């Protein structure tokens, strides 16, 4: 804005100087008619006005262009990083152009849509890299994050003035024709035309270049999606355009040239291996810290950095003696001061000397832990999805929230087999105060019997509590046992009567069948929560903040 002001200022001075000069020349030759002066003045003023305004506009355009260039550069960088994005934006832009040429649009509208096509995935720039690489298994949180890319894109592009419409199209490019898309669940004509066109071309490019569908297969798939995900009229227009260009040979030569290059690169086995190594989280986090020569009871660092005393002092005598027998030794060292964990290898060189390689394992172990947690989250999502939201695994302190919810209406210890019957009596008495059908009561009693039996059978001791919630009766069964092997849960949930072994399987299939919700926490002992809804028979328990994971995610 400062530059604009400065420009206006220069322009004003120029105008002022001109008028001063003209006034002077008129003054020095008074025989000139007055209209001549007026015309001169007016022409000059207009010229100056145009020149000045032009300069301002030009500057404004160049600022826009700079910003656009920056965005495009980012886009190219992003595409370079993630092979399956490569050339995607450009191909979608070209396909979009083909469709637009068959629609009667104003130039303005057409260019806005073309820009939107080029920039539609720009919001993915803000996504963490690992999310874009691991396309197959995403947790619910990650799906949510991925689905925010249209909004992020809108914000990025919305900054350019005059691009408001482009930003709007980008925001809507994952909306579906039947209203099941995101972020705003718009449907039919409520979705901007540009976004509907890009939905078609984006889908087509993903099918062909990412999922490897043949041309005809992709066309057939698009037809299937017409009316549900995609605008049927635009699908027809697109297919008309693409078939013409396919028959004309344009399709393969021009548009798919860049995709073809990709395939060749991926076909290179060395490249594949390199890609694989690049992705390896172990190798990525493994650092060789020190190489030490041990000779005559002395340690000599072979690298630039000195070996900290803490490490040297921790080398166990047995490892230092062991190598003398000619065998390699390995040892873990934990540096209490820094909290770092090292893995050291002792390789004998001669009878009384050895080489010691010290690897810093801290990051490897940390990423292993992160990975485990990630897998647990994915596991939780999958279990929640396959049980239609019935079975929820919770980790860490999360369980406290569920245990402490509601009013305690009964509690007892589970110590001996007879206590299972006592637990059944307890839940019977609580249920009798509510208008629930006899069948449902019997089912809840059975579930309590199963859970209590598990404690007596597998742990020996525990406790059971009944909480009354606003809309459900909750039974909480706790023990300090070794925990449930949650890897058994899929078989239990997916196969009824999973019963080769009379342990976990039986009780769990009963509980999953009859309860509205089953919550399991199995770290540091087991907490099992059984929920039965109170209000109506069909209504399931409200699930605070938990939704069944979104399905397959097409980008």
């Amino acid at each position, binding site marked *: 804005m400062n530059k604009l002001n400065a420009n206006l200022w220069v322009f004003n001075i120029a105008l002022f100087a001109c008028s001063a000069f003209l006034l002077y020349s008129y003054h020095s030759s008074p025989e000139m008619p007055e209209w001549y002066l007026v015309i001169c003045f007016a022409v000059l003023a207009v010229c100056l006005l145009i020149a000045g305004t032009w300069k301002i506009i030009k500057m404004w355009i160049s600022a826009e262009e700079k910003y656009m260039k920056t965005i495009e550069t980012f886009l190219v960088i992003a595409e370079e990083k993630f092979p399956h994005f490569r050339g995607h934006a450009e191909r979608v832009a070209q396909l979009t152009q083909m469709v637009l040429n068959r629609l009667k649009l104003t130039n303005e509208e057409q260019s806005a849509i073309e820009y939107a096509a080029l920039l539609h995935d720009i919001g993915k720039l803000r996504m963490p890299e690992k999310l874009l690489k691991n396309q197959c298994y995403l947790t619910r949180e990650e799906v949510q994050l991925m689905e925010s890319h249209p909004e992020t894109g809108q914000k990025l592009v919305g900054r350019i003035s005059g691009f408001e419409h482009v930003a709007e199209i980008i925001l809507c490019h994952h909306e579906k024709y039947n209203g099941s898309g995101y972020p705003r669940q718009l449907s039919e004509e409520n979705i901007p035309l540009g976004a509907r066109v890009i939905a078609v071309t984006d889908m087509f490019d993903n099918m062909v270049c990412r999922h490897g569908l043949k041309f005809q297969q992709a066309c057939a798939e698009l037809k299937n999606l017409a009316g549900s995900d995609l605008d049927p009229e635009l699908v027809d227009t697109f297919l008309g355009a693409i078939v013409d260009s396919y028959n004309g040979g344009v399709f393969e030569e021009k548009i798919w040239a860049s995709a073809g290059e990709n395939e060749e690169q991926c076909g290179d086995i060395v490249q594949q291996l390199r890609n694989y190594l690049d992705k390896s989280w172990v190798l990525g986090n493994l650092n060789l810290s020190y190489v030490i020569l041990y000779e005559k009871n002395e340690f000599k660092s072979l690298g630039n950095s000195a070996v900290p005393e803490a490490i040297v002092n921790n080398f166990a005598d047995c490892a230092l003696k062991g190598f003398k027998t000619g065998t390699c030794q390995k040892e873990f060292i934990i540096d209490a001061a820094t909290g770092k964990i090292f893995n050291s290898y002792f390789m004998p060189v001669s009878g009384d000397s050895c080489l010691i390689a010290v690897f810093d394992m801290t990051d490897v172990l940390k990423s292993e832990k992160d990975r485990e947690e990630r897998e647990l989250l994915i596991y939780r999502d999958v279990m929640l999805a396959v049980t239609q939201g019935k079975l929820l695994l919770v980790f860490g302190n999360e369980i406290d929230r569920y245990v402490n919810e509601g*009013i*305690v*209406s*009964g*509690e*007892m210890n589970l110590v001996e*087999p*007879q*206590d*299972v*019957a*006592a*637990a*059944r*009596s*307890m839940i*019977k008495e609580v249920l009798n*105060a*509510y208008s629930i059908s006899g069948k449902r009561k*019997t089912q809840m*009693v*059975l579930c309590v*019997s*199963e859970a209590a*039996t598990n404690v*007596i*059978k597998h742990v020996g001791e525990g406790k059971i509590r009944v909480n*009354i919630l*606003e809309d459900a009766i909750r039974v909480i069964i706790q023990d300090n046992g070794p925990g449930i092997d949650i890897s058994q849960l899929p078989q239990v949930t997916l196969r*009824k*009567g999973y*019963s080769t072994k*009379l342990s976990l399987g*039986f*009780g769990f*299939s*009963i509980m999953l*069948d009859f309860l509205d919700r089953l919550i399991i926490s199995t770290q540091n002992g087991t907490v099992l929560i059984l929920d039965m809804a109170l209000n109506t028979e069909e209504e399931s328990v409200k699930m605070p903040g938990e939704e069944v994971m979104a399905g397959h995610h097409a980008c």
Partner: protein
Amino acid sequence: MPADIKVEQRIWNPSNGGVTVLKVQVTVEGEDKILSMDGELDIATVDKFKDSVDEARQGVKRMVLDLAGLGFVDSTGVGGLLNVIKSLKKDNVEVKVRNVSTEVYDVFDLLGLPILLGKEIFS
């Protein structure tokens, strides 16, 4: 929560009730032995059931389990039944199960007992 329901907080005492009882009565009808069960079949009583069958099975060609008085069964009880019936079949004893209440049969069905043993066993 409905206003007319009072929930008092207290510690449940097992002596308040709910002791599993299972009575097994053995009668003879011709060559058949009839085991009539009365009560509940769960972790506390399943061993008693197994012992009763073991006592009664000697030299028997046909055994009938009459479940008319069985008010409750859970997966532990079903597991016990399954093992007993399998072991009887192994000794070529014909087994029939009769007078199964709807509630008990629902549990059998859920755990796949009719599939594991064959539906013809339930008369």
